């Protein structure tokens, strides 16, 4: 029973890491697309990539429970920096997915929120 729980946690940790890696890739791809349009989109089916990212993200959000850590308390400057970075990530993601129309705004907002939560979870 305990082994099952450990295994489940272990798999969830791997899924979370894969989600973080895919999300980081998504942000890097968005940045590269701004530098040179089509540098990634010529070779990558964005629909499949976004679908994988979405599935990994949903599993992470629904099932992953981060272990409680004692860390330093964040101040206003920390929050502002995280906010700014998250907004930047959101804008990048919006830019990359601009071809899908108004849904890109939704993707941008979700990306910013995910980014904010991820950084906050890792900091606190």
């Amino acid at each position, binding site marked *: 029973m305990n082994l099952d729980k450990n295994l489940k946690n272990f798999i969830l940790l791997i899924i979370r890491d894969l989600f973080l*890696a895919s999300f980081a890739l998504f942000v*890097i*791809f968005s940045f590269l697309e701004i530098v040179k349009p089509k*540098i990634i*989109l*010529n*070779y990558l089916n964005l629909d499949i990539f976004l679908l994988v990212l979405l599935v990994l993200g949903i599993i992470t959000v629904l099932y992953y429970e981060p272990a409680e850590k004692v860390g330093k308390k964040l101040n206003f400057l920390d929050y502002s920096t995280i906010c700014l970075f998250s907004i930047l990530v959101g804008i990048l993601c919006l830019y990359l997915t601009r071809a899908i129309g108004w849904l890109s705004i939704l993707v941008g907002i979700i990306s910013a929120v995910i980014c904010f939560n991820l950084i906050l979870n890792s900091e606190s």
Partner: protein
Amino acid sequence: MENNFLKILRVIIIFGVCLIILFFLSQDFAWTGQLEFKTDFKRFTPFVSILKPQDLVEIIDLAYVKQAPVWFDVYLPRDFDKINLEFTYKNDFNYDIEVGPKLYEENNPLKPLENKNDQTNSALQNTQNGFKIKSIEFDLKEIPIRKGKLRFMISIPDLKDGNKGVWIKELKVVLQRKAIWQENLKENIFNYFNYFKNEFR
């Protein structure tokens, strides 16, 4: 034990992310000196357009050229030295077929893809169901590129009857330039961004 395994896995994931980014960059930069892609002309691909004008071509299972000339665009992600166009096609009525860059309305520098008088064509290979594979190479230093785009034309002067057309199954495009080990990295990246600046900005 589990923690160690997790650490190794994380290193593998980070390594994988770096490899994926490098892979996409190496594709667009053509670091191997070659970029290859295919199309069946049924839809636009990132590198090749459909055959135009659309009313001269019918898409059934394959692209069927019922009148000529028709043309298509090839989009180049960076500067290349040569382009090789390999057509897989069916020419049941043995028309002369010419292919080349479409630079002007008339008198374009076309090369023969198939010539009914030329029997010494060693590069011609017969495949199943009468489809032939033939390739033509062009030097890109002699062809002006406009906004990262090259327009090629397929001319079939004897094709008059729309019911006796030519089938095109596939076009394989191979773009060639110096590999990264044949020119230095700085020069390679400079040429890449220089092309981008000249063509798209």
